[in-house]
């Protein structure tokens, strides 16, 4: 039954509906694959027993011709989503024993649609990282290898690696600065960050609230459409949730790009970027042209300021959001000499280095005397970046860019300067700052045999065009490479 793990989510759902195999069979096949792949460290918590029970329930529904849009499909959930009765750590020591008594809206939607949840996937601590190396629960290993063990990207590294290794049919993830798209690019998978507000943030552990968005990582563009359809939707419990009807994302995948105007922003390149990424970008342009799209060259002049603006806004919001971890109401507590000492020791021991660094930066830029110089300035630059996009939407329907300036790098690569790590998100962070939908599609292997992605960015609320252009790219790229299964 091992071939059941090779299916796309779309094919698996069709097979389940047609009763070619049962949910118990496909779930069991994935659980076996998960156990074989333990060395990849993709899961923080597995929940195989309950997964098998869910599968049985799904089979009962499917037998009667009932069931939701994800009925019986074994999926993984990033450990940032609170799941009732299943430990949720956010990759942090401070939430090491946190057992939510409520369910995030997104996972509740997926459960209502019949998802079989295999467990909780590893991630950078509080989603702060681009390599999954900041997780308290250890690095995730990328299924793709180049002699040495490579990072899967971050922060949704467990989600991306699990989908690439065929141990989950798809996975939920989140994206604050590129945390869905960069790991998708590093692992040869597909992922979309929808428009800010499409997916409810309720029950998702907060990092930077004005940037955080949920989305899927999957093996195909259509699979992402299927998952996003379930995950997204208005939720009164999130005051930034968008109260608009969802378009049919799957139907959008078949629309094609004939007559579509695709913008090529000249600023999406950098000095250290390998020429093969530049070449792939040019190839992507030719692919879309061959499908009938019209190519328009555009400029987004404030692109280079996106990353520094992000590293003010995101830490500022994080320092505020993470103030709740004080060891009083939940989470780990380290007793000190007095109340303040208890707070300080609890947080110093409970948070890892990168999280402490961002809390400190965030506190500094919000502190008296510096608020205007840093935070207010960054929010104004953010307006400039959003205005750049508004200006180009008069000329084109979507943008094509590389997803990342590099392919996956080695675990433990010595990084002296944190900025070197932050540069991973240089092409993805703009869509977060402006709230735009953006998708990464695997497009080619580099000279070392590692996957590279291309990114499609769309107008606010226009995921349909993003899906249409991404599906066209996917068809032209015909990316069928899979990592050699060295971990079994």
């Amino acid at each position: 039954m091992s071939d059941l793990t090779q299916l796309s989510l779309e094919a698996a759902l069709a097979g389940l509906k047609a009763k070619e195999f049962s949910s118990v069979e496909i779930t069991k096949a994935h659980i076996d694959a998960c156990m074989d792949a333990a060395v990849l460290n993709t899961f923080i918590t597995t929940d195989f027993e309950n997964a098998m029970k869910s599968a049985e329930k799904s089979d009962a529904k499917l037998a009667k011709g009932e069931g939701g849009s994800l009925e019986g499909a074994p999926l993984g959930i990033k450990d940032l989503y609170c799941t009732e009765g299943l430990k949720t750590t956010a990759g942090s020591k401070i939430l090491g024993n946190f057992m939510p008594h409520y369910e995030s809206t997104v996972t509740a939607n997926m459960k209502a649609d019949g998802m079989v949840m295999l467990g909780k996937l590893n991630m950078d601590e509080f989603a702060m990282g681009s390599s999954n190396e900041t997780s308290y629960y250890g690095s995730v290993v990328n299924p793709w290898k180049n002699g040495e063990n490579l990072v899967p990207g971050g922060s949704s590294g467990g989600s991306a690696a699990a989908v690439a290794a065929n141990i989950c049919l798809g996975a939920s993830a989140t994206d604050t600065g590129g945390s869905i798209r960069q790991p998708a690019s590093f692992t040869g998978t597909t992922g979309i960050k929808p428009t800010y507000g499409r997916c409810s943030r309720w029950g998702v552990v907060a990092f930077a609230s004005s940037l955080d968005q949920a989305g899927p990582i999957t093996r195909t563009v259509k699979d992402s459409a299927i998952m996003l359809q379930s995950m997204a939707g208005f939720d009164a419990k999130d005051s930034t949730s968008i109260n608009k009807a969802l378009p049919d994302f799957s139907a959008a995948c078949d629309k094609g790009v004939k007559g579509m105007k695709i913008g090529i922003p000249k600023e999406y390149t950098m000095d250290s970027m390998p020429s093969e990424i530049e070449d792939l970008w040019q190839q992507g342009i030719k692919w879309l042209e061959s499908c009938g799209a019209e190519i328009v060259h555009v400029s987004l002049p404030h692109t280079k300021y996106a990353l520094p603006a992000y590293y003010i806004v995101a830490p500022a919001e994080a320092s505020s959001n993470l103030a709740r971890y004080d060891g009083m109401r939940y989470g780990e507590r380290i007793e000190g000499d007095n109340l303040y000492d208890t707070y300080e020791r609890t947080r110093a021991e409970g948070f890892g280095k990168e999280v402490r660094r961002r809390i400190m930066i965030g506190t500094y830029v919000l502190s008296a005397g510096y608020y205007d110089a840093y935070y207010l300035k960054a929010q104004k630059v953010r307006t400039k970046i959003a205005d750049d996009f508004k200006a180009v939407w008069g000329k084109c329907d979507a943008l094509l860019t590389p997803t990342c300036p590099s392919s996956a790098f080695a675990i433990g690569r010595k990084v002296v300067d944190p900025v070197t790590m932050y540069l991973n998100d240089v092409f993805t962070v703009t869509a977060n700052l402006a709230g735009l939908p953006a998708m990464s599609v695997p497009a080619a292997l580099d000279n070392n045999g590692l996957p590279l992605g291309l990114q499609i960015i769309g107008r606010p609320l226009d995921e349909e065009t993003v899906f249409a252009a991404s599906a066209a790219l996917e068809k032209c790229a015909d990316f069928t490479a899979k990592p050699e299964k060295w971990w079994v």
Partner: protein
Amino acid sequence: MSDKNTGVTAETVRKIARLSRLHIEPDRLEFLADEMNGLLVWIEQLGEVDVTGTQPMTSAVEMDAPMRCDEITDGGMQEKVLANAPKSEAGYFVVPRSVE
């Protein structure tokens, strides 16, 4: 960006750590000051952007703040609320003494 705000010193780090409620050993202060200065120098490039007349962004997607009735919709879950407490007793959180 103003001209004089890049000089994060060990003393600044000590203050920020206090505001952040993070315990830092005194021998780490200098190192962290250097690290913060490194990041701030990189962030300083925002100074090149002319933002005269630009409004700060407050929302990624333009929409009106939603309104709702001021009524109780939730509650009566003391056990659930206390379930993850490091210490609790008789339906309360138990916290270190805060008033001497």
